[in-house]
């Protein structure tokens, strides 16, 4: 058993695809539609066969309420690991993303938080053992 796909809900799949590829730097992995549904995933170019992130359309009222609640509480909907959180912060910010938390040292790691423009907070994490 493997963890191969995880999901975030997004309010607009086209907008999400642009953000997750052009701003965050992931690559589109799967994009197909069957009737009203669109299955859309991205993967990290550093790990093309790694875990995929599904950008799922949030047309589900229950999921929408959950998404809004955790956003308001400042909870990230997804967490990505990096070995250079400061560099990523600069790079992603330069592409227009809004950070709600700049790279900040916490116990054991440095974290930053940004808005994905689709209703979610995303946390970037650099574990202390990766620091240079």
């Amino acid at each position, binding site marked *: 058993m493997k963890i191969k796909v995880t999901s975030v809900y997004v309010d607009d799949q086209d907008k999400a695809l642009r953000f997750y590829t052009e701003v965050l730097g992931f690559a589109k992995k*799967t994009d197909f*539609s069957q009737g009203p*549904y669109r299955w859309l995933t991205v993967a990290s170019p550093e790990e093309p066969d790694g875990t995929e992130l599904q950008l799922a359309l949030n047309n589900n009222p229950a999921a929408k309420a959950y998404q809004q609640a955790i956003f308001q509480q400042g909870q990230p909907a997804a967490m990505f690991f990096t070995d250079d959180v400061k560099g990523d912060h600069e790079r992603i910010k330069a592409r227009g993303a809004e950070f709600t938390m700049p790279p900040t040292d916490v116990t054991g790691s440095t974290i930053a938080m940004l808005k994905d423009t689709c209703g979610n907070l995303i946390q970037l994490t650099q574990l202390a053992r990766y620091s240079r």
Partner: protein
Amino acid sequence: MTDHEQYTPGPASRAQVRKDRGQNGQEKWTLILVRELRHSPEKVWQALTDPAHLREWAPFDADGSLGTVGATVKLTTVGAPALRVSETRVTRADAPKVLEYKWGGFDMRWELEALGGGTRLTLWTNIGRRFISMGAAGWHICFDVLERLLAGEPIGRIVGPEAMKFGGWQRLNAEYAKQFGIETPNWPPEAAQKS
């Protein structure tokens, strides 16, 4: 159910695409597909409405008959990596002529015209702009499978990613894209091609 290997889709057939403005001002695309079947409208109607028949060719399962106006039916998308269930209400069911319901947010309209001893079947379905030729290719294959089912030689449905793995799918997708004058969608996406 085991004849998928022997099936090769024919060339792209008549298909049209229409662009409207939706109520929210967004573009609304409709795919219109026509298929002439050598079976009576009554027989085709049954294949379009009866869950046991739908299971043999359609890209969704229905938990009840689609043949009664006002009926509430759950449609489950099959073949996608996740099951997607949407509840639909049949808004029109004039057997064996016109059938209308929604699939998710998409309008589905089927029209059956008697033609000699057979039926001219027309489907109007909404579709996302970038998926027009993919959808036409997918429905084309579904209609081929439907034809065999009606002829009493079911080969089992071919939908979702399984249809895309299919040899003829790429060709149909390209042919329909050409017919509609759109670029062939990038499939599989580059990231997937690398792997």
